[in-house]
């Protein structure tokens, strides 16, 4: 099969969990990487080494361990900046996860005065395929400020309906926030094209890249030129640990936004009457940060960079194309989202006629196949397609064609288990 990672078997050996046997001696077929990715040994070892040998608080400990820990933490920032080709390493803000990054943006925009201020009559534009974490913060913002939330609808094939882009993005638009790759439909959105439109009316452009950064090369210099101002992703979907996310923002925007959380590390000086604030990135990093998580994420992006993001994208594309073809042979199975692998990422949500997604996932689990079932935190997108829930299989750099075969075999078993003819 063309496009697969040439050393797939070697890569699989980097992920110890893939050798796990499940109950009944079945091998694990992990197809839930859009939910969270598995971790390579190097990430686990780097985190253990940090805790065993270098543990200390960062930026406030005047001893050797403090210096080592600060060095490891800040060099993780350098690695991440290089991984996504950020214009400046100080534009990389560590957060808890992508949700916190998006909430940071929506909250500080709610507090902003001056050119970024949002008021009555202003509009915020999102899309109908967003994860709840890129819907709810904007609902809260618009409700609080008396602004209006608007959104792009979807075509039946799961792509964005851009036919009304000229009326949706207008002189009242203050923010356009959208996902790059849908976590439910898999759709890859034309982020640069939409950013250019938004820039033309002076709107801030926010991109939820939670599903994009794991799967494809990201060049923030290029995206910034197209007009993207802020971009969020999470560590645990890029083979890193949980508890660490990233917000990238253009310096001039981050400088204009007020602080998010107040506390240690985010200040320049504090008096009882008032305080002044540190510059970016520390302005948005109050309190002791997730240190070992950041160090682990640094090792994770190093690992992905070593494999090569272009090669990972090609692998995901090959596996996704194979999966779409194989799943089409299961009778009663309908894929939600684009059927052309070149238009989508590796998350494939589907319905199986006559069996609820919960039951599909349960029977697949009995065959060792791990998938997600439910609304995938995208209820509006499910509603758009007239379904309440779906089952989602999602691949990553360690996924083999054999695992897709196991999925299809388990789906056939599910049909027979529920006595569907």
């Amino acid at each position, binding site marked *: 099969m063309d496009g697969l990672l040439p050393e797939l078997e070697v890569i699989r050996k980097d992920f110890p969990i893939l050798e796990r046997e499940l109950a*009944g001696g079945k091998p694990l077929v992990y197809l839930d990487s859009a939910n969270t990715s598995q971790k390579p040994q190097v990430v686990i070892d780097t985190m253990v080494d940090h805790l065993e040998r270098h543990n200390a608080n960062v930026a406030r400990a005047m001893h050797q361990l403090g210096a080592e820990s600060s060095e490891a933490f800040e060099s993780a920032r350098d690695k991440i900046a290089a991984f996504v080709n950020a214009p400046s390493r100080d534009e990389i803000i560590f957060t808890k996860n992508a949700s916190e990054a998006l909430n940071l943006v929506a909250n500080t925009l709610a507090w902003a005065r001056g050119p970024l201020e949002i008021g009555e009559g202003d509009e915020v534009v999102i899309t109908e395929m967003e994860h709840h974490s890129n819907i709810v913060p904007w609902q809260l913002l618009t409700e609080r400020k008396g602004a209006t939330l608007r959104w792009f609808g979807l075509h039946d094939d799961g792509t964005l309906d851009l036919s009304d882009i000229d009326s949706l993005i207008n002189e009242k638009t203050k923010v356009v926030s959208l996902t790059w790759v849908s976590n439910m439909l898999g759709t890859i959105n034309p982020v640069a094209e939409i950013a250019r439109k938004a820039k033309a009316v002076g709107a801030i452009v926010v991109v939820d890249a939670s599903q994009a950064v794991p799967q494809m090369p990201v060049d923030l210099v290029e995206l910034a030129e197209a007009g993207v101002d802020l971009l969020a992703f999470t560590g645990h979907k890029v083979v890193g640990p949980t508890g660490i996310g990233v917000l990238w923002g253009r310096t001039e925007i981050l400088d204009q936004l007020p602080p998010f959380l107040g506390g240690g590390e985010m200040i320049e000086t504090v008096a009882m009457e008032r305080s002044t604030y540190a510059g970016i990135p520390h302005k948005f990093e109050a309190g002791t940060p997730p240190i070992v998580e950041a160090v682990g994420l640094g090792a994770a992006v190093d690992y992905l960079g070593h494999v090569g993001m272009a090669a990972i994208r090609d692998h995901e594309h090959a596996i996704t194309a194979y999966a779409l073809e194989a799943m089409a042979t299961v009778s009663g199975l309908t894929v939600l989202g684009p059927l052309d692998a070149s238009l989508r990422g590796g998350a494939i949500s589907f319905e199986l006629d006559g069996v609820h997604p*919960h039951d599909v996932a349960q*029977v697949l689990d*009995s065959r060792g196949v791990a998938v997600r079932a439910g609304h995938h935190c995208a*209820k509006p997108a*499910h509603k758009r397609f007239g379904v*309440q829930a779906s089952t989602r299989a999602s691949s990553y750099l360690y996924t083999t064609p054999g695992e897709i075969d196991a999925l299809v075999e388990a789906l056939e078993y599910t049909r027979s*288990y529920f*006595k569907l003819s």
Partner: protein
Amino acid sequence: MTAQDLDALYQEIILDHYKNPLNKGLRDPFEAEVHHVNPTCGDEVTLRVHLTDGKVSDVSYDAMGCSISQASTSVMTDLVIGKSVEEAMSIQASFQELMQGRGNVEPDEEVLEDGIAFAGVAKFPARVKCALLSWMAWKDATAQALADAGTDEETTNG
């Protein structure tokens, strides 16, 4: 989970109720209607109760969800319709105890009848909410109907 676990979860009785649910549909008259949702998976039930003289005369519903939640709804209506409110509440409590017992509660077939088929569900924490959705909705609706009846009485008396 193994194939045996799967069969323990999906008892024939459950699959039968799933395919042929009892008492399905929304009917009049009713004293209370509730809408309950399982926020983790989006399963939903709209449920009505009709009480007469301290008896559960009817429970009607419109539900969307997995086999466990649909079958549980069907079994629940079959068990509580025709019983006194007091008796039905006690059946509800038994079922809830079974579901929240992590597989360590021995079900009483005299009380739960077809409901004992859900004993296996208690071992799957992710599915317990599915089985309990409509039972909790029924309890809520019944409590509302009783409270409203109480208020009406007070109003009448007052």
